[in-house]
């Protein structure tokens, strides 16, 4: 609130841009996005015409905090979109400790470490958002100099993370699950194809209710067999997403899965390169039709690709988990490659 009062340029209400030459609606930034404008409608209906959305984005990523590289931590950064000052940037608002891999190589140790990792993250986020949650429901009175009092209603409109952190924050399983899409309930075996189009959207309330019940059951009995139903029905973990307590995430427009946005750095540096790298073995095997590529056999070609990626400064580590949502083989064979 102090930052809000002391900011030189504050945009209180969003504004819809006009229509472009081709007839489509113009959008330039978050303050004129559909998500923000729809939240603004809800907020002004609930809290009156003198209220406005205090739009906040959160950024969570792993960071090295020791010079030896042995210690990691998750800093949480926040940005208020209403500030229009150029000097206002991301502000670190919290740190989440890192939970490492278990020493013992047993299933129970891995489960315990996984539960600890998910629990620490969610409880840290819950502590961080404690006052934010209350303000998102009731609003906060703000008095700008020389103007009448307004009601600022905080809303979470962006969750900037990589894919791993996104799954962790909304307490969903990783890629190795049946329903891997954040927005819809498309099945893994039909995703990417015509039969996957038109899959039902995720029911935010149903998933959160199931997760809440699962979390309560897990607190009483941590046996993983009790979570099978949750895993099979929703591909979700038995934890409660702490961001769901923020008003507007699980209420009104239910924006829990709409606020997820990717960090451009991750998309370019890890996401795109890694996704392309994961396709290359299949691509080379089919493109070469059993023969060697120009650089030699497939492993040799992959080594050359990795070397090239290192030269470009990209860390290229293919994931052991198959992606499963692009039918590369059928599409390649259909065009005669």
């Amino acid at each position, binding site marked *: 609130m102090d930052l809000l009062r002391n900011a030189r340029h504050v945009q209180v209400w969003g504004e819809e841009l006009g229509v472009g030459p081709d007839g489509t609606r113009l959008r330039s930034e978050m303050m004129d996005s559909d998500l923000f404008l729809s939240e603004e409608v809800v907020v002004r209906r609930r809290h009156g015409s003198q209220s406005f959305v205090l739009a906040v984005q959160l950024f969570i990523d792993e960071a090295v905090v020791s010079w030896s590289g042995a210690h990691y931590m998750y800093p949480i950064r926040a940005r208020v979109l209403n500030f229009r000052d150029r000097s206002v940037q991301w502000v670190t608002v919290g740190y989440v400790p890192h939970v490492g891999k278990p020493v013992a190589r047993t299933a129970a140790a891995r489960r315990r470490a996984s539960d*600890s990792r998910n*629990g620490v993250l969610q*409880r840290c986020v*819950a502590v961080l958002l*404690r006052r934010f949650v209350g303000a998102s429901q009731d609003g906060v009175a703000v008095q700008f100099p020389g103007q009448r009092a307004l009601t600022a209603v905080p809303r979470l409109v962006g969750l900037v993370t990589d894919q791993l952190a996104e799954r962790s924050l909304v307490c969903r399983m990783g890629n190795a699950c049946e329903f891997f899409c954040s927005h819809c309930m498309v099945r893994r075996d039909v995703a990417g194809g015509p039969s996957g189009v038109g899959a039902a959207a995720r029911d935010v309330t149903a998933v959160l*209710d199931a997760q*809440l019940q699962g979390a309560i059951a897990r607190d009483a009995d941590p046996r993983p067999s009790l979570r099978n139903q949750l895993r099979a029905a929703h591909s979700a973990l038995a934890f409660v997403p702490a961001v*769901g*307590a923020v008003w507007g995430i*699980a209420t009104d427009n239910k924006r829990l899965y709409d606020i997820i946005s990717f960090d451009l750095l991750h998309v370019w540096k890890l996401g795109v390169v890694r996704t392309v790298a994961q396709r290359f073995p299949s691509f080379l095997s089919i493109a070469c039709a059993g023969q060697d590529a120009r650089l030699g056999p497939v492993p040799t070609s992959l080594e050359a690709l990795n070397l090239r990626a290192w030269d470009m400064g990209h860390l290229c580590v293919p994931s052991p988990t198959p992606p499963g949502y692009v039918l590369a083989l059928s599409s390649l064979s259909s065009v005669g490659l």
Partner: protein
Amino acid sequence: MDGSTENDDAVARWSCWFCPRVFATKAARKHHMSARHPHCNRLVPPQGFVELHRQSSAAEHRGAAVSGGSSVASNVVGVGTGAAPVTSPTPGNPPGPAGCAEDGHASPEHPALGGLGVVRVPVDGYTRGTLPVRRPRTVFQTSTAARMRAYYEAMPEGSRTKRLVPPSVGDRPSRFNTPLLRQTLKFALSAGAAGLSEAGQRWYVSVLLLAERGGVACPPRDERRDDGRRRKRNRDAALVGSARRPSTSGGGDDAVSADEGGEASEHEEGELARTFPTKSAFVAAVREEQRRVLSKLCWDETPLVVEGVC
């Protein structure tokens, strides 16, 4: 619902239970009541309500009931104004909103149901199947967001949050109070995006001090301050000197000359050297400034116990 027969339906006029409007059909009256009186009990008519086409026959019965002192009549009189024994919200005398919702007199013969006002039903309503069997249960009906908030507020760490740095630290003035010192601090904390390590800060401030002295090597006095053993030796020597000074000079000339020498050296020292005479002083000041800012920003620390590990 109100017990009328088919013959009555053919010639009847249906008045609203709560206002003077009259309708030709029961469906029209039902639609009107659902639209105009949504908060009133529309399951059964109000007590004493008599349809228009039955008022002539009911008047005789009502007169007998009042003269007999029925409990229903006495209850309603107690609630009303007392000027007139109003017993029914007839079209000419509609009930108020309070009477429409509940009148607060639930008798064992007429049990009250919660929800849409107070519903008075026949005693055998449950047994005859006109109403479902009462299943009292506790229902916590609230939003998903509120339940999730309550789930995390019930965690033990909710009351264990404490200030990372005491508030008194934030009240102290900053030692980096000039533009040069602020830029020095900014570089020390943001160089290479993550800032300098403590060793890097020592190196950085030593370069700055060297530049302030015009490239002249560091005097031995500063080096001695860095070394703890030498500092202790200096302190011992100073104590011996001060103890010996009165006996040797007797007037304190040495002290005066030492002060003059100190002022002269201070004139030669730059701003950075005056504020941070040693490299360790700079590192400690940076650390203290970080704590001061954390205190001003009200950073908290919350211990968590997850899976038995703190």
